[in-house]
C-alpha cells in the first residue's frame, strides 16, 4: 500500500509491504521512502513502535498518538512531529505564513469554547485579521484569517463548544 505523508511542510511517498512476522509483537516490512527501498523491522512497544533499519541496525523509539482523523503525533525522545497521512491538506505549522489561494477553511486547532465571533458572512477580511476567539485552558486564542478575502460561511456561534478540527469559518 502506498501513502502520502505530509510532514515538516513537505509531502513524502511511502509504500509498505509486509514480508512476515518478527517475534510475537513484531513485523518485517519492505518500505520504499521517496523511491529508496529499505528493509524495516517494527516492534510494538507500550507506546508505539521500535523501528529498526535492517541495513545498519539503527533503531528509533517512536511513540504514536492519533490526534485527529489521519493526523498522527510522532514523539521521538527529544522531538515531536506531526504527520498527516493521505487526505486533508496539510495545515502548515510554523515557518511563517504560506501563500494561500482559493477557499480557506479555518478550523479549531484544539477543543474549546467559542467566546467571540468577530465576523459575519459577507465581511471583507484582511490577512491575519481575527475571525473567532476560542477559549481553551483559560486562555483566549484569536484565530486569524489565512488570507485576505470575504467571509463565505460562519459555522459557529458564541458559546459553541468545539472539538479539534471543527470548521469555524470559511474565507473565500
Amino acid at each position, binding site marked *: 500500500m502506498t501513502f502520502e505523508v505530509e510532514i515538516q511542510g513537505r509531502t513524502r511517498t*511511502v509504500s509498505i509491504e509486509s514480508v512476515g512476522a518478527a517475534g510475537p509483537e513484531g513485523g518485517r516490512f519492505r518500505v520504499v521512502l521517496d523511491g529508496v527501498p529499505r528493509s524495516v523491522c517494527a516492534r510494538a512497544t507500550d507506546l508505539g513502535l521500535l523501528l529498526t533499519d535492517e541495513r545498519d541496525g539503527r533503531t528509533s523509539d517512536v511513540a504514536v498518538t492519533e490526534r485527529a482523523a489521519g493526523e498522527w503525533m510522532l514523539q521521538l525522545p527529544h522531538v515531536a512531529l506531526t504527520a498527516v497521512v493521505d487526505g486533508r491538506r496539510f495545515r502548515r505549522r510554523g515557518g511563517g505564513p504560506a501563500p494561500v489561494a482559493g477557499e480557506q477553511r479555518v478550523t479549531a486547532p484544539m477543543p474549546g469554547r467559542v467566546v467571540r465571533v468577530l465576523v459575519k458572512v459577507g465581511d471583507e477580511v484582511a490577512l491575519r485579521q481575527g475571525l473567532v476567539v476560542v477559549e481553551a485552558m483559560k486562555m483566549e486564542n484569536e484565530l486569524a484569517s489565512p488570507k485576505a478575502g470575504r467571509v463565505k460561511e460562519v459555522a459557529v456561534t458564541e458559546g459553541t463548544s468545539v472539538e479539534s478540527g471543527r470548521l469555524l469559518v470559511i474565507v473565500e
Partner: protein
Amino acid sequence: MPKVLIANRGEIAVRVIRACRDLGLGAVAIYSDCDRNALHVRLADEAWHVGPSSARESYLRIDAIVDAAKRSGATLVHPGYGFLAENATFARACADAGLTFVGPRPEVVALMGSKTAAREAALKAGVPVVPGSAAPFAADASDAAIIKEADRVGYPLVVKAVAGGGGKGMRTVASREALVNAVRTARSEAQSSFGDAAVYLERRLIEPRHIEIQLLADEHGTVLPFVERECSIQRRHQKVVEESPSMALPPATRLEMAAAAARVAKAAGYTNAGTIEFLLDRDGRFYFLEMNTRLQVEHPVTELVTGIDLVQWQLRIAQGDRLDVAPEQALTPRGHAIECRIYAEDPDTGFLPSPGLVRALSVPGGPGVRDDRGVAAGFEIPVFYDSMIAKLAVWGQTRTDAVARLARALDEYRVVGVKTTVPFFQWLVRQPAFLDGAFDTTYLDRVLADRRGRPFVEPTSADEDAATITAALAAWFRAHRAAAGRNEVGTRFFDDLSENESRPRFNWRRAARTEALRSS
C-alpha cells in the same frame, strides 16, 4: 487528627496534600467530573465530588466546597492558588461555616486583592508604586473616558484586571488606536477568569525586571520576608521561569526591598503566606506592583534556597503556631534555584493548548531536581482549566550549576500523548541572554517574535524518516483493521494508539495474513 480540605486541583493540590502528610494532617480532595481519576484525587485520604467539569460549576462553587468541607469533617480549608484563592467571599464563607481558611483574613484578602486598593496601601506604607489610574473604570465607562484616562497615564501602558493574577485579563497597549480593543478583551478575560470585569491602567516601565518578596506572617505580629525571586522570563505577562536569588539585585537593595514588603504587610495586618511583587527599573529603583494574598506557583524556588517549607508553615500559622524561623535563614540564599512551568501547549504552533491523554510520563530525577506535577500517565488533561501540568525546579551551588542541571533535567523529561513546553525550555536554557541573566520582562516576547515560529528542536533527517515511516505504518494498520472488520477479536491495532486508549496492542501476524489474503 485535623483534616484539611484542599479547594483546588492539579499540582498545587498535590503539593498541599504532601504538606498535610508531612505534618500528620488529613488531606481531603475535591474534584469535578473530568477530574475523577486525577492525581490529587488518588493521593488524598478522601475525595469529594463538587460538580461538573466547568470551573464555574465546581472549583469556583463556594457553597459546594464549603458543604464538602462540612460533610468530610475538615476543619481547615487550603485554597492553593487560582480559583478561589484570592476570593474574599470564599474566605468569609469558610469563616462563617466555622472553617479555618488557610490565608489572610477576608477583609485583608479583599483589600490587597483589589489592585487599586493595594496600590493605595503601599503608598501609605511609604513604598513607591508604578504610575497609573487611581481607581478602576466603571463598567459602563465610555470609550472617550477610557482614552482620556490613558492619555493622562501615558503610553505605553498596561490594561490590568483589578482582580487579576497569573497574567490573565492583562494587555499591553502601545498607542491610542489599540486601547479600546485591549480594554474590551481584558474585561472579557477578567470576567471569565475572576468573575469581575473591572480593569485599570498602569504605565509600562521600560524593560523592567520582575522581582518579588515572599512573606510569612503569623497571628502574633511576626512578619518574615524572604530572599527575592526573579520572574522576568514571561510570555504574555505569564511567568514561565522563576529563580532565586535574582542576578540583578545587589544585597543592599534586597534588604531594602524586603523591608518595604514587610512594611506593606504589617500595615495591612497581613497573616499567612503572601507575596509582594515589584518592578525593578533600569536604574535599580523598585516599585510596588501588587500583592498576591496566597501561596504562589513559584514558591518551590524559595523553599530550595532557604530550606523552609512554606506550605507547612501556612498550615501551622493557620492553626495559631508562632513563626520561629530566624530572619537570616529566610533572607540568606543557600545556592541557586530555578523553576520552569511545564504547560500542555505546543511551542511550535505559538503555544496553542494541547489537551489530551497523557499516555506516558517519564520525569527527571537525581541530585537537586524537584518535580511538582498534577498529572499521571493515563490522565486526560482537560480543556477546562489552566494548561500547566508540572513544575520542574532545580537547585545548584551556583547559578551556573543550576542552569546545567536544568538543561540535564529537561533532556530527561518525556511526556507522551500531548505536546508540552519542554522543547521550548530546552532551547531557552541555552540562550546567551538566559545564561548571562541579561533579560527583563520584555525579553521572551521579543525573541519569540523574532523567531516567527521556527521550531525549538529541529529533527535530524533520520528522526524525520523514522517518523514518516511510523506514520505510514500506523495508517497501514488502520487500513488492515478496517478490512478485517471491527468486531473481530485481535484486529484493534492502532485503534489502541488513538487518544481513547492508553494500552496499545498489536497483532502483526493477523495483519500480515489479511494482507496476503487480499493480494492473492
